[in-house]
């Protein structure tokens, strides 16, 4: 089916099966490989993207649900040639990224939290990223980066 939506502000039109995963459409049809697959069943959050303001696991979202929506991925956090966003910069400076596989999803969960007015409280930040598994950092520096 034909699905029209916006990715990082740019309108796109894809001819794909309705049950194709948003994750595959992003990675394979649009070449946006920043979004990662960690488990394919909604447990790890590596594929988190922002869909109409909400954080979702792109591995669980079929394309038929994306029609007319607005999708934000890690590639949209800063201009390709421009400086890092304040959130990305904080992750870089404070050590919020190590192996980098959870990072795109973690950034999107954090961005959605901040966009919704989230503050620097440790517990609230941890709640906001509880669906995003990281195996490298122990989360301390991720929480510091978001705070």
């Amino acid at each position, binding site marked *: 089916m034909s699905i029209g939506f916006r990715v990082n502000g740019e309108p796109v039109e894809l001819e794909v099966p309705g049950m194709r995963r948003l994750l595959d459409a992003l990675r394979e049809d649009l070449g946006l490989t920043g979004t990662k697959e960690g488990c394919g069943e909604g447990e790890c959050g590596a594929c988190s993207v922002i869909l109409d303001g909400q954080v979702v696991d792109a591995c669980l979202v079929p394309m038929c649900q994306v029609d007319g929506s607005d999708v934000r991925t890690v590639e949209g956090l800063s201009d390709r040639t421009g400086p890092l966003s304040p959130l990305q910069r904080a992750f870089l400076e404070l050590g919020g990224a190590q192996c980098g596989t959870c990072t795109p999803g973690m*950034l999107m969960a954090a961005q959605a939290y901040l966009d919704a007015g989230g503050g620097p409280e440790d517990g609230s930040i*941890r709640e906001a990223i509880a669906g995003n598994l990281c195996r490298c*950092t*122990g*989360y301390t520096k*991720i929480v510091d980066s978001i705070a």
Partner: protein
Amino acid sequence: MISRPPTSTTPPSASIAEPPMVVPGPVIVDPLGSTRGAVRPAPFRREGPDKLTGRAIYVDDLVVPGAWYGATIRSAEPHARFLGLELDPAFDWSQVVVVTAADIPGENVVASIQADQPVLVTDEIRHHAEAVALLAAPDREILRAAKRAVRLRTEPLPAVFDPLESDHEFAHNEVGIGDVDVAMAGADLVIEGTYRVGHQEQLYIENQGMIAIPRDDGGVTVHGSLQCPYYVHPALKRALALSDSQAVVVQTETGGGFGGKEEYPSIVAVHAALLARKSGRPVRMIYDRHEDISATTKRHPAVVTYRTGVMRDGTLVAQDIEVVMDGGAYCTLTPVVLSRGVLHAGGPYRCPDVRIRGRAMATNTPPNGAFRGFGAPQTEFAAEMQANRVAEALGLSPLALRRRWVYQLGDMTPTQQVLRESVAGQEVLDRAAEASEFERTRERTAPGRGGGAQGRAARRASGIGLALAWHGAGFTGSGEVKLKSVVYLDMDVTGRPTILMGSTEMGQGTKTIFPQLVAAELGIGEDDVDLAPVDTSVVPDSGPTVASRTAMVVGGLVIQAARRLREQVETATGRPFSASASDYGQEHGPIHIEQRFVPYPDIHFDDATYTGDAYPCFGWAAAVAEVDVDLDTGEVAVRSVVAADDVGRVLHQVLAEGQVEGGTLQAVGYATIEEMQVVDGRYRNDRLATYLIPTALDAPRIETILVESPYSGVPHGAKGVGELPMDVGAPAVVAAIHDATGVWIHDLPATPERILAALRAAR
């Protein structure tokens, strides 16, 4: 979010502010210390911007036109005779490539320490995830259908799942000093204990994956997620009968390893390469999470039995220890894991009479392998349990007991190694205890101990626990001498240096600290130092990126290479390298420096008798954990961990803290929730929905204290950091559970079921 500039003078957090050993904030002392004396801001993670913008290319992000998709057909039985592969004649096989053992042009083996593991099974299936055949197809739909059209004909054989019942031994070790039997007989008190630890999954967030591309010279290039390119390279040569140059291994950005990508990538690479060879096309072999958990290596389960003899005043007089590890179906790295486990089993404690015996047995379960700590977390958990139980039996504080026992300069270990320098057990212990206010907190939690008053009425109990460990730096015994690691440092005609090494970045910071070390030595900026891609056709074998050896051993080589480069340029030009390198290059041409490992001075180990310097030096770690235990449900919340780790020299504060924090949380998971349930040799919870690791909500606040007790055998003094925190987290958490509830949990993980059972038994 805080945008803290790298050179900020923001006061460091309280925990690291007090004593002078720790360098504050994100500022580092020149890694070469007093030789140059400069203080430089630490660079940010070199590949960080790529990882933060989605530009970093991991294996599954590589676009390879025309590539087919590969899959592995695995056994579904733990032990069976393999009789044949049946391909459903109703399926259209014209679009699919099938590889069996008959298609292997070289030897059917993925060798590690022994050459026992086949690439593909020929007659005997030895574990349920064993690879039997390979498929490749142009798209995933056809591949899935093809997988369903394959049947294995097998005949079941009796299987062994318990290492204590196995009669196939992969390895054994024995070390000891003194006369344990005599000393034990003279002890006032003998404490006995048996401790069991299970499998643990590395659970790097990026699954294993390789893409193999046929080469015009008849060979193959594989791109993939890996720790050790020079493990994969010989594996390809041997199985595919290739020359050195026909097998090329290129590391893609690697999303975590923790040991799990030490040996298994060789199998994935050989499988992908065989499919590429037969199909004549590139083949993508990317595991999904379920396959990755089911088939790849785990931390070795172990049963560790202790008899510890002490005098009434707390003096440790004898330790008699037996370690049995479950190696799984093939040998892999098991003998070395066992060896490290045995060498660390005595704990960091002075004892005149010690005997440690270990054996690793085969079972019909998937092979176990490397995982952060490499045998030491298993035995040091048990060692710390014993120390805490001795303290309890003698009515001593666990801190006081350790202060009495801990190794000091000049003490002798069970391999007769005399600790001549860099001994910081006491320091990490005191620093962790002080920062956590251990004794004061323990007084507060005292009422709950021993199942006392708090236990009956309260629904919740709090406790504090501590643990201490040592971790041998670098490879065990004569390992580094045998590895003969090499790095190159090249300078081009413009005077720009490039580091060429086989050491890999998997998140720990290799790509950041190596340019930093060279830049500091040459007096130039980190950005003026390049790193060659990890490609076996370009870089030399710098040894595997394992054993917390990279910063220490390979880092030392890089510094030595940089010193030679500087000397060559400065001798010719009479001016500083930074001001004269480009003139030198234009006048004399490029420079190629090869730096080879030279054995550390006065370090000797006898492989035959297993005596001598098991490691050139040790790192030291202490952890204090605080927990809340729900007495109705048995659930444990780890509230905080204070970790003090002696890493020799801090090369990069943020990266080193990141290692300690990440390792600590893996240890907390090991202690509390990470349990691989094995039923008839199969992992029952082989999905991320059922094998749980800590989330941000489960994770405690982790406070890191970095202690610097440098090792003189390397120019920068660094001893490695990656594995240290893994040794202490679990015993600290279990000690805290005891402090809260009065019950000892002897088996990891300390699940609610085990805690409730222990509480019931205590009533």
